[in-house]
């Protein structure tokens, strides 16, 4: 599965795509099957919103405690907030935050690799 993420232009907040809107919490993000062209379609639409978000990209997900979580550690930190203080998005708590905290890492998200290549 995949999700679409970006940083919101006006405040830099990490946001996730949900049916044409941007939401703050990963738990509310729209999920796309790996072979679903809707993911890339959403990425294309997001890129046409340069006054709303910066650098949208798709991230890979894995299952954790029955819920979906970003595969890469970097993306889990973006979805949760920094690990040294409890004042990012994780401050809201709940099952989805715990699932993200307990997820285990694997490779970087392909979206991030694409971004690095582009630069």
């Amino acid at each position, binding site marked *: 599965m995949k999700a679409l993420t970006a*940083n919101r*232009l006006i*405040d830099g907040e990490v946001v996730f795509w949900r049916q044409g809107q941007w939401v703050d919490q990963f738990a509310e993000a729209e999920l796309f099957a790996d072979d679903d062209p809707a993911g890339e379609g959403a990425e294309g639409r997001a890129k046409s919103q340069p006054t709303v978000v910066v650098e949208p990209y798709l991230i890979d997900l894995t299952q954790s405690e029955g819920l979906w979580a970003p595969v890469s550690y970097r993306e889990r930190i*973006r979805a949760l907030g920094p690990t040294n203080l409890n*004042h990012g998005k994780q401050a809201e708590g709940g099952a989805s935050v715990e699932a993200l905290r307990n997820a285990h890492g694997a490779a970087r998200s392909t979206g991030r690799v694409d971004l690095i290549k582009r630069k």
Partner: protein
Amino acid sequence: MYRYDQIDKDMLADRSEEFRGQVARRLAGELSEDQFKPLRLRNGLYLQLHAYMLRVAVPYGSLNPDQLRKLAWIGRTYDKGYGHFTTRTNLQFHWIKLADAPDILDALASVDMHAIQTSGNCIRNVTSDPYAGATSEEIDDPRVWAEAIRQWSTVHPEFNWLPRKFKIAVTASAKDRTAAKTHDIGLNLKRARDGVLGFEVMVGGGLGRLPHIAPTIRPFLPATRLFSYLEAILRVYNRHGRRDNIHKARIKILVAALGAEEFARQVEAEWEKVSVSADLPDTELARIRGAFAPKSFETLPAVSEAFEAAKLKTPAFARFARNNLKPHKAPGYAIVEIALKGIGDTPGDCTAEQMEVVADLAERFGQDDIRVTHEQNLVLPHVRLDDAPAVWTALAAAGLATPNMNLVSDIIACPGLDYCALANARSISVAQNIARTFADPERAELVGELKIKISGCINACGHHHVGHIGILGVDKKGEEFYQLTLGGSAAEDAGVGQALGPALPYDRVAEAVDTLVDVYLRERQGAERFLDTVRRTGVAPFKEAVYADVH
């Protein structure tokens, strides 16, 4: 401290207004992100993992109480109530909104501060000795020269688009507290036998992907010729620096490629073409020097009865005095180091309340003077020994009296993967784990001086190459791993550390440092520091112990 004149104030006001317009145009879609990014970076505004980050310049690490209070106010109003002091003696706010940035720049300008040239391929904030004006070791006050360089380099039209960023350090003591040899240019003030003031000029230091310790290209440059010589160095670099390859664009690569001797020859040849009119007029130097006129210190006995009595009465204060108070040039005074390294805290973080406590103490007991160190701590450079117990009491109440200066838990750590868009691995939590391992102050003192430096990526903002123990976070297939190096130093005995062995997983790092310390305690001879022992024995006994059970 140097105060901005009307020209400086007008320039900041103009710059802030200009940026306000640029932000408005970006939000309105008149500027693309690619067009806007270099503009915001020129004003110290980065986009990181969770928000925008604003890097505020603290010129040569010098602050007055009003400035620190304004930083506290900004932290409370626009951030999450704190700021992060960096290895470049700057302050970073990690939770900034783009729409607020112009108002923040206005607030900074109201106390003669800004974020100009804290990013980009230009001359960055000058580093200087946090003990300047307070230590008897110094040849001259390095802040005078650092301020002159700040004025010369600010929006300098010729050097505002260099091949890569450029960092200058000025030190004036045999004991180097600026990491001068890891800067693009390190300037060490010296006095010749005939009394003439000058600089040892070191060029081509730097960390990052390819660490270099700066060689000396001129052992003695008359101080009056500093600016023409700097101009010659920058011109040679501007002409020949590798603009084609970002990884080879720093001056260290040019100096290494040409060799220090040939680089020096080219600089000398260029210098002959630079007019002496490029040098600082004596009158201007005198004007700047006037801003750093020696403080008036009371005539006090060298021994303070109140101070001695407090040490006898309160062991915790005695420990603080042993580790955090340093000798002052005036009898009856001390330099007080404030550790932003409480056990389990984030190295370099300072809450708005803590900033206000330090500002108040500087006002009441410290002649309105506050310094930031490249080791991410604060300093009150002029405190009467009689007042040291009161200062300690106030610091302790604010969680700022950890007695660990230069000890194992006084760790440099970059923000790492918790905040930074470039990082591969976390730094902060590694530092926290190590500090907790050495939470016992008795043991930390037994170990003695040990400088641990942690970076979350090869860009080396945490100076890992020059740590007595250096720790570099790397990404191995999405997992955090850490490469350890031993034997580096950023001080006058500068050197790049040697790799210990294969990278270790996150949860083994603190334990490995514990093992390294055990080996040191076993191997050390006499009064050897950790660094001395490593340099005598080499890494072999340390490597053997750390990797003994890894197979």
